């Protein structure tokens, strides 16, 4: 249905023009809007980025453009979405028939979904999935489509594309899957690409590659890009224009530089303040809290009910000064890891023999001091989580020892396991999964106290309430079920549970990765406060370098199961010695549009930690390059 043939402005072709889009979901037989009166437009060759807090309606907006929201139970309640088709005629997507939408989808609008891991069909080969898209929308013979698909895969820089075409999604790494998704979205050369958080789950090196790729393809095909993200570094690097959403409303829209320079809306200001910036800590030795701006928002009438409690978070109330830089007295070693090795068997073949092994952790050694945070960074899959789980004996290490107060925990006897459970706690990588869906929050927090005999009954309830308040939640939350909380709230519940037995060591595994920056900052502050108050030693696992910089006293860098660099945070960040550490630092996007990088990031596929049985990896020895700063020295060309 052509509306207007010409929606050009500013001399550029406008691909998409949304006016007053309102989308709602049915709740209790009433339509509750999730997105209200949004207007935005995307031009050819330009990138529009949508940022905003979790649950603000970003994904809903993107799904509405594709008219896929109906399959999730939503309904477009009003507004128009003019889209310029390849032929040049303009239609209103909000009114288009199913058949028209089928033609538009894939062919003219490509979409990369928020969760790349689950968005590929697990039982079809990668090739089949790309070819399908091509065959559907282009008049191609099957062999031609196959060639085309392979070319697209090449374009997204997947090595050995011909072979990858025959593989299934589960046989690919996360980064490769992400690129396959992009290949599908791009295979028909769409006018418009919608990318919803395309890099959330990825680490910085892969993220950099993917963003660069999208930019390049965009330039090549002149497509409009609508990018959704919560990473302000990504925004600064890619966006032409930025839109800020909050609770279903568009609260601010501006050119990227202008927005970063002068955020107008209070929420945008709060967001900007919470952005961790790599290098912000240079010149200091001690961790520092984030300085947060207390939002002063007037609630618009009729706002959606899903209102995060974070606005009332006590930890956001004051602007905290950086901790004193005064060097602490030499603390005691609480946990000492020596030569830890953890491997997983991969069985295959006729008799299910162990043919290969995953060398997840290879002879890792480090000490953890009381009151100290050791940051553990490294590429996805390098063995960070496994290290943490080995410490807690959740996986049985193959060899090595873990001393806590001089007791070897790997002995797994009664005494060591009591010591372990009492004193070392873990915050799991996925907070939702680590909460029993049929156990109320309060019971979850009380459980460790009860089973350890620390408290019971009323006493335990009182302690749970205190803990909830300590992590900035209301004590009444104890009555809720896990699914009734937001991601950020669940994250804090897990921290509260981990703290309930007054542990001396806390292992925090990616405790902030899935959160938007404002909540992330609150949690970091909380951990810093707790450490200061209780003297907890913390192993902080993360792939976000900026956050690690903020919170750590010391940092360890892992690569393929080995620690390749470890030392004081300042030394490692300001003077990285290992090549891998430097690469990691270089890949971190900088949340400053004025410092945009244009060079293509180096393309690296992480070598696999899976090796044949008997093929033991060489563990490079660590040498001291500065006070307490060790670096792996590799055997290169006959000498170290």
């Amino acid at each position, binding site marked *: 249905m052509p509306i207007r043939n010409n929606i050009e402005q500013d001399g550029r072709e406008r691909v998409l023009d949304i006016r007053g889009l309102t989308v709602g979901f049915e709740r209790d037989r009433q339509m509750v809007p999730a997105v209200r009166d949004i207007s935005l437009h995307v031009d050819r060759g330009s990138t529009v980025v949508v940022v905003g807090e979790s649950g603000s309606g970003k994904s809903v907006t993107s799904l509405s453009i594709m008219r896929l929201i109906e399959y999730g139970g939503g309904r477009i309640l009003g507004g128009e979405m003019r889209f310029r088709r390849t032929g040049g005629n303009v239609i209103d997507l909000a009114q288009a028939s199913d058949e028209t939408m089928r033609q538009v989808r894939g062919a003219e609008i490509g979409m990369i979904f928020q969760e790349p891991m689950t968005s590929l069909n697990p039982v079809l080969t990668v090739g089949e999935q790309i070819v399908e898209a091509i065959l559907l929308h282009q008049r191609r013979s099957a062999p031609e489509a196959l060639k085309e698909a392979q070319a697209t895969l090449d374009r997204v820089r997947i090595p050995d594309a011909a072979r990858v075409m025959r593989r299934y999604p589960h046989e690919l790494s996360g980064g490769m899957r992400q690129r396959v998704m992009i290949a599908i979205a791009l295979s028909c050369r769409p006018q418009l690409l919608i990318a919803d958080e395309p890099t959330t789950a990825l680490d910085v090196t892969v993220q950099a590659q993917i963003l660069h790729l999208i930019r390049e393809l965009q330039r090549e095909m002149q497509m409009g890009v609508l990018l959704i993200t919560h990473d302000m570094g990504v925004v600064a690097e890619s966006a032409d224009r930025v839109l800020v959403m909050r609770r279903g409303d568009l609260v601010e829209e501006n050119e990227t530089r202008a927005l970063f320079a002068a955020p107008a809306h209070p929420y945008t200001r709060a967001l900007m303040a919470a952005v961790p910036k790599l290098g912000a800590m240079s010149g200091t030795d001690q961790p520092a809290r984030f300085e947060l701006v207390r939002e002063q928002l007037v609630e618009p009438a009729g706002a959606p009910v899903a209102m995060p409690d974070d606005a009332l978070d006590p930890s956001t109330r004051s602007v905290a000064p950086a901790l004193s830089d005064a060097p602490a007295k030499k603390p005691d070693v609480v946990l000492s890891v020596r030569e830890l090795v953890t491997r997983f068997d991969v069985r295959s073949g006729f008799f299910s023999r162990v043919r290969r092994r995953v060398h997840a952790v290879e002879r890792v050694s480090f000490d953890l001091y009381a009151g100290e945070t050791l940051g553990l960074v490294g590429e996805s899959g390098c063995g960070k989580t496994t290290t943490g789980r080995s410490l807690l004996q*959740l996986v049985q290490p193959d060899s090595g020892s873990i001393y806590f107060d001089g007791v070897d925990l790997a002995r797994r006897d009664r005494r060591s396991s009591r010591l372990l459970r009492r004193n070392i706690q*873990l915050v799991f*990588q*996925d907070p939702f999964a*680590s909460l*029993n*869906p*049929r156990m109320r929050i309060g019971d979850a927090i009380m459980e460790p106290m009860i*089973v350890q005999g620390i408290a019971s009954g009323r006493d335990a309830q009182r302690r749970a309430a205190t803990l909830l308040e300590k992590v900035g939640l209301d004590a009444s939350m104890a009555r809720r079920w896990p*699914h009734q909380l937001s991601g950020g709230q669940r994250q804090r519940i897990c921290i509260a549970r981990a703290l309930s037995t007054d542990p001396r060591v806390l292992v925090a595994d990616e405790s902030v990765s899935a959160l938007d920056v404002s909540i992330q900052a609150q949690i970091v502050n909380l951990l810093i406060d707790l450490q200061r108050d209780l003297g907890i030693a913390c192993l902080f696992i993360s792939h976000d370098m900026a956050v690690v910089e903020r919170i750590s006293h010391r940092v360890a860098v892992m690569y393929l199961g080995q620690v390749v660099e470890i030392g004081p945070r300042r030394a490692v960040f300001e003077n990285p010695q290992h090549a891998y550490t430097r690469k990691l630092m270089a890949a971190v996007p900088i949340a400053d549009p004025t410092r945009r990088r244009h060079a293509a990031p180096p393309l690296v596929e992480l070598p696999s930690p899976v090796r044949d049985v008997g093929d033991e990896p060489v563990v490079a020895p660590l040498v001291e390059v500065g006070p307490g700063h060790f670096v792996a020295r590799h055997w290169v060309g006959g000498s170290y």
Partner: protein
Amino acid sequence: MRPEDQVLMTSAFFHFLRRYPTVAVGGLLMLLLVLIAIFAPWLGTHDPTQIAPLYRTRSPSAQFWFGTDLLGRDVYSRVLYGTRVSLTVGFSVAVLSTAIGAVIGVIAGFVRWLDVVIMRIMDGFMSMPTILLAIALIALWHESMRTVILAITIVEIPRVVRLVRGVVLSLREQAFVEAAVTAGASPWRIMYRHIFPNTVAALIVQGTYILGVSILAEASLSFIGAGVPPITPSWGNIMAEGRALWQIRPHLIGFPAAFLSVTILSVNMLGDGLRDALDPRMSKED
């Protein structure tokens, strides 16, 4: 009770009905059947065991609402009393097999070294046809409702065990179980506090399925002469005894079959609905 409260309660009730129509309809039918079972002596028009050869195989009439059977017994009264047998068999088998199966399944799923042994034994039981086992058991003790219940239960237990074990195996890998381990919870505590509650939804569905299947199985057993004693009125017995005549005396099969279908229908509706209604995650609508 104040009238406002009454209004509130009624509206809450209607709200529930609207939200879970299947539970409501299934529940009402089930309630009706339970009431029939309880009040069978008062609802019946004749003594269900009183034989009267002179009145055999009469068609439905004002005197015999559902007609009479081969010994002249009143089918209407027998069908009402049959509700007792069928519901007793159904509920006993469902409760017994889900309870026993859940315990064995949780243990098998959680205690690695027992798993193999338990599952082999379960495979063994599962591979025996129900009917065969029932006949053998009935031959061993004599025909009674207890034997029928036992025979069906034995065959249904492995099904529950498999289901529960499967759920447990996947739950065991879940982070929240590891979280409990980290908290220092004992294996027993983990089993009953963390794993078991998460198998309940699957158990309810399986339990209601078994309830239906066992009522059917009771009828099939009667069909080949291995059910509850023929003196005891049960739907299976009425159908089995009258089946040869079904062409000329369809009431002998029709009435009990109708009751049986309605029962199984209601049980299924109840099960499917309950699963949704009891799951804290499914109540996200409010």
